[in-house]
């Protein structure tokens, strides 16, 4: 008799056990092995905290973290959890702490911008009564500090003492594309936050899935704007963790009316846009790339779609609670008209994005559909079963989704099977 494992077939990059979207033990293991493991997690943009004392609340996985600009411009990050009783120290989303100190309201333990404990009320007691033992050393009671590195103004943090430097973690291909977006100084235009009742990995797959683009997001074909002949490509870093998609605009003037001729759908041209300024694209980087979607493992997407620029940070609150924090930006030298143009273009993306809102629904549909499906597997073989560094065109391939799972499975290792058994 076949002594099949009670866990069934193990997950592969081409076939993942749906359990991974629902299992609380796996979620806890992901926090340890991925978000606090040998990775760099996106924390925010340097442009969000330009001045000394500026701070911004952020997350690594589910862990609340604060990003702070200290004296002399150095950026620090620490876990937002007082070393005394575990209370939240910094209670605002963002702001400026002019004196550079962060004081827990509960017992007024005070920390500097680096997260080092600098003050404890009644440390020596009062008139010889109470207080801490004389051996109490504040140096042992600082906030938990992360290692912080920036690349081109994108700030990342890690809990790992031995992960490779950020630039090596990202790899040369990813750095080249980050350079592309951050080719000149940026300014933040605002935020939106999208809360999905779905697992974070469903969104990570979604942003790496070039197969669904023209099939789920029907805005372009509905208005007869989609055309297969646009040049598209996908590139991965060496390990397959990260990827980038690019779609180039046809050379020369763009006549949207002509797009219908090449559209691949029966519904082509059923509607006509009343106001095409929504779609206007003004190339501002030295190429014709109109779409650049870059997923950096494990928790951020960097995008340029038309003239929209944004990061999308993935925050994990639970197996089926995922927040996507969109940070929109432009360039510091944008004039008023350019900003207005970006705001108009922003209709395309974000939680109300005409070409993107469906992603939130797709994540929730997969979460709902995989409930109770432990031991059953997804099927990720569009375009093959391997992970390649380059592919073009990208629309008929799930290469980068397999790359994500390859990275995920290697970081999770035995933890996946052990967690699954613990839940069984």
């Amino acid at each position, binding site marked *: 008799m076949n002594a099949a494992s009670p866990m069934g077939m193990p997950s592969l990059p081409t076939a993942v056990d749906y359990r991974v979207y629902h299992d609380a033990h796996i979620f806890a293991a992901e926090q340890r092995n991925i978000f606090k493991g040998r990775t760099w997690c996106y924390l925010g943009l340097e442009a969000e905290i330009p001045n000394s004392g500026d701070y911004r609340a952020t997350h690594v996985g589910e862990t609340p973290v604060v990003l702070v600009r200290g004296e002399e411009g150095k950026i620090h990050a620490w876990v937002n959890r007082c070393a005394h009783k575990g209370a939240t120290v910094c209670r605002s*989303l963002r702001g400026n702490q002019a004196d550079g100190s962060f004081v827990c309201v509960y017992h007024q333990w005070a920390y500097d911008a680096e997260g080092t404990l600098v003050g404890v009320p009644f440390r020596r007691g009062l008139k010889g009564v109470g207080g801490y033992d004389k051996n109490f050393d504040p140096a042992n009671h600082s906030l938990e500090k992360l290692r912080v590195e920036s690349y081109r103004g994108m700030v990342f943090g890690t809990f790992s003492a031995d992960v490779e430097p950020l630039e090596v973690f990202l790899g040369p291909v990813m750095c080249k594309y980050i350079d592309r977006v951050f080719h000149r100084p940026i300014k933040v235009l605002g935020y*939106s936050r*999208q809360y999905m009742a779905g697992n974070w990995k469903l969104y990570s797959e979604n942003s790496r899935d070039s197969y669904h683009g023209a099939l789920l997001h029907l805005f372009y074909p509905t208005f007869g704007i989609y055309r297969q002949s646009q040049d598209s490509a996908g590139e991965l870093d060496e390990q397959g963790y990260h990827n980038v998609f690019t779609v180039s605009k046809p050379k020369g003037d763009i006549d949207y009316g002509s797009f219908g001729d090449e559209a691949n759908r029966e519904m082509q041209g*059923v509607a006509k846009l009343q106001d095409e300024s929504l779609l206007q694209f003004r190339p501002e980087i030295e190429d014709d790339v109109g779409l650049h979607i870059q997923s950096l493992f494990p928790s951020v997407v960097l995008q340029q779609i038309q003239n929209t620029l944004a990061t999308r940070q993935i925050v994990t609150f639970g197996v089926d609670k995922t927040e996507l924090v969109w940070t929109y930006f432009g360039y510091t030298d944008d004039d008023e008209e350019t900003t207005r143009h970006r705001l108009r273009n922003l209709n395309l993306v974000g*939680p109300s994005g005409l070409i993107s809102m469906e992603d939130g629904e*797709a994540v929730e549909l997969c979460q709902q559909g995989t409930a109770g499906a432990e031991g059953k597997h997804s099927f990720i073989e569009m375009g093959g079963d391997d992970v390649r560094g380059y592919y073009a065109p990208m629309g008929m391939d799930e290469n980068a989704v397999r790359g994500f799972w390859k990275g995920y499975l290697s970081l999770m290792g035995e933890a996946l099977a052990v967690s699954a058994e613990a839940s069984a």
Partner: protein
Amino acid sequence: MSLIDPALQGLVDSLNARYGLCLDDGRLEQWPEFFVDNCLYQVIARENVENGLPAAVMYCDSKGMLIDRVVALRRANVFPEHFSRHLISRAILTGIDGETVTSEASYAVLQTRNDGETRIYNAGKYVDRLLINDGVVHLVSRMCVYDTHRIATLLATPI
């Protein structure tokens, strides 16, 4: 301080009531008709407004763009099936200058999806500029400043 003309107050409140019911009844094609041609409609997070940041989740600066939103919603966009319910407060008229009136009103949009539960989906306030001509009111601009900066799933139907 001069008293607000009750008839003017009534015109503005009536516009808001009709606007809410129009969306809640699903008569989306009629929604752009509340606006002048050269309008500005925005749905923007309060956290952005209070920090002087301009990014909005919807930004339509022409009636054509409002119509495009509705056509996209009907034919292209995929979102959870739902009902909306607007509860809109009495408006405060903040300025009157000839035919132009500025006003603000609080709103709450409740949403009911297929599971049948009604949830507070989006709460905020309208910051409006209206044009009143021969007793007919149109929106020149409507900025929906939402407190609920965590948008559940996605935001498809206008606020």
